[in-house]
């Protein structure tokens, strides 16, 4: 594995904070790197020495099971030492701030901080305050870059686009609670940069018009866009982030936006169905669809591992 491509490209980012600030070349390079790490998981000895002697900290201020586990495993497979830390739930003005916490951790001689936080911008704030690398594992409603990357790797693998990661001609619908979704934002930036057409689908209360400025098509009618799409990324309704009433009832939402088997039958036969998890089965996606042949949901999880290995490996190679 080398950080240099033939044309002299070198990965330039000490932090991975979002896909908005990455170039298409950066994204393609990271995904190619991830593909290279894929084999590690299938060997009998599931480890490479790429980050031997390095320390990666999982600093999570928000509940997470799969993202935390995925980063932990990714760091372990690169032979890094991994420290698990839970941050305080909310910031209080007189208590220890996010920055205090991060500086304390850094003082232990850490190379990479993986940060999950309930406030948008937290990872960026952290990156500005510490000397080590920061990987954003989800900040508020802002970005979740490794999720966006693993979604793109999944799409590329299933649609045979791993050669150049060129998504031209591909139509991806992201469905559901767009407004509160960091997954949607990271997917939008990444997919647009690789050339895909992105349709955002959801009720107007969860899909503000400002998203049109991100060069996406907006729709409030899933059935209308269904026949046109190659990929359906069904987002979780984040009941915990929605203040007030976003739609009249779950029943009404499911009727209009839930991915049922009947609805799937009207899509292209080879349409790819994805979900970032955890799923609300029977709300945004039916079990028959989630567990059916079009679903790539478990592949997403598997791809998450090598994407995170690539992310940790690349940021660690860039000195501050």
């Amino acid at each position: 594995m080398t950080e240099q491509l033939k044309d002299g490209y070198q990965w330039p980012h000490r932090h991975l904070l979002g896909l908005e600030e990455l170039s298409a070349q950066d994204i393609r390079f990271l995904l190619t790197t991830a593909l290279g790490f894929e084999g590690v998981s299938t060997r009998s000895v599931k480890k490479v020495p790429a980050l031997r002697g390095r320390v990666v900290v999982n600093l999570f201020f928000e509940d997470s099971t799969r993202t935390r586990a995925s980063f932990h495993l990714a760091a372990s497979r690169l032979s890094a030492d991994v420290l698990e830390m839970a941050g305080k739930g909310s910031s209080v003005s007189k208590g220890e701030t996010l920055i205090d916490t991060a500086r304390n951790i850094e003082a232990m001689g850490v190379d990479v901080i993986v940060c999950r936080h309930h406030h948008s911008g937290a990872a960026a704030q952290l990156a500005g305050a510490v000397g080590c690398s920061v990987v954003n594992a989800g900040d508020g409603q802002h970005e979740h870059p490794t999720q966006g990357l693993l979604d793109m790797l999944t799409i590329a693998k299933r649609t045979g686009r791993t050669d150049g990661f060129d998504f031209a001609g591909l139509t991806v619908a992201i469905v559901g609670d767009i407004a509160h979704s960091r997954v949607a934002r990271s997917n939008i930036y990444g997919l647009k940069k690789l050339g895909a057409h992105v349709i955002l689908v959801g009720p107007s209360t969860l899909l503000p018009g400002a998203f049109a400025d991100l060069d996406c098509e907006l729709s409030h009618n899933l059935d209308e866009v269904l026949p046109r799409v190659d990929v359906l990324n069904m987002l979780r309704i984040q009941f915990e982030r929605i203040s007030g009433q976003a739609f009249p009832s779950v029943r009404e939402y499911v009727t209009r936006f839930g991915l049922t088997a009947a609805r799937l039958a009207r899509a292209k036969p080879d349409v790819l169905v994805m979900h970032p998890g955890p799923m609300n089965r029977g709300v945004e996606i039916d079990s028959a669809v989630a567990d059916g042949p079009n679903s790539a949901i478990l592949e997403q999880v598997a791809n998450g591992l090598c994407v995170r290995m690539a992310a940790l490996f690349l940021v660690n190679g860039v000195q501050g």
Partner: protein
Amino acid sequence: MSRLTIINGRVIDPGSGLDEQTDLVLEGGKVASLGKVSKPDDAGENRVLDASGCIVCPGLIDVHVHLREPGQEEKETIATGAAAAVAGGFTSVCCMPNTSPALDDDARIEFVYRQAQRAGLANVYPIGAITRGRGGKELAEIALMAASGAVGFSDDGVGVASAGMMAKALTYIAMTGKVLMQHCEDPELGGGVMNAGALATRLGLAGWPRVAEELMIQRDVLLNRAQGSKARYHAQHLSSGGSVELLRKARSDQAGRATITAEVSPHHLLLTEESCATYDSNYKMNPPLRTRRDIDELIDGVKDGTITVLATDHAPHTAEDKQVEFAAAAYGIIGLECALPLYKKALIDSGAIDWPRLIEMMTVNGADLCNLTSKGRLSVGSDADVTVIDPDHTWTIDSNQFASRSRNCPFDGWSVTGRAITTIVGGEVKLALDPGRVRGGSGANVADSAQALLQPAAV
């Protein structure tokens, strides 16, 4: 009784329309005379201040500051806030009632006067709360506060949400002759942390749309009109260009012009939402920074007189309250010590207005708003509150040099032009940046005593 003669300055007194090079004599805490003095008196205790090349104007008045006392003295006190005022050329400030506890009864109003008197720097006039505890549920003791010296009423920090409560507040406050100052933010539509729109969407931050401001202004204008335009209504810290248009219409007749006024802060004339892109909480304000188009419309509002007053919304916060995640950070910035050059930059350097208009909006208009009839003017007999401005003084804003207890200033490091070099309150020199201009006074070092007052540690 010593006499201070200010000579050779460009004296601008917007209240009387005066703008000429002449001399001003202060004696006994009042303006004693205005006009050329043939032999300025520097004998004995009397002093002469040479204001050559400078503007001499009524002491600047800021009708919107937060001094945090009582309750949050770690951010600011009445003394440190008054020191900041004097350092910025302000001789009078009106402090908002969102203290802890809120300024919502007569004893607390008197407390502000007492603390200001102890500090002995700028005049500090309290604004009383409209509703008890600023809770929006029941009227505070408005008439008792008015009798104790509250110069206006506001629940600033929050708007009066209920239309019924607002109707009652307008009619009740009208009875006192004081002004109602509204923080224009519908609580259900506002409450976000930056301007609503594409950037907030990208950043994943909750938006605070213009309409939350505009809706409350429009509602209040309709309510006041429905009640016969008896109350004076002042819209605080405008941020939206749409608000300017609503107020322009509201002021299109005699009743509207007599009762409806508005203010704008330096940051809403110079900064845009783009500043929030790095999640720097020094750009988190309420109302939020908006766009270049809003700035242009606000400046148009200043130009055509729709916006009548310039006010800083000086909002001190500790580093601990600011250096947290953007959404969790406190709203607001400090403004007293850099407002003057920033207004000059936004309004004079842009060609929108000239010095007499700028001074009008920083002196007599605020005085009239708060019924301070002897302030904001230089006519003989007025209070001897005077600011001497060097319009060409170029300096770099350094918040570490501020007299304010707080440092939350996004303008830190800006190079600006124009500065108050002398601030005189009640005939006493409280700030003298250029002591070489003063002669007389029997050796008493005006500059040293004035500077000593501004040392934060001393107050």
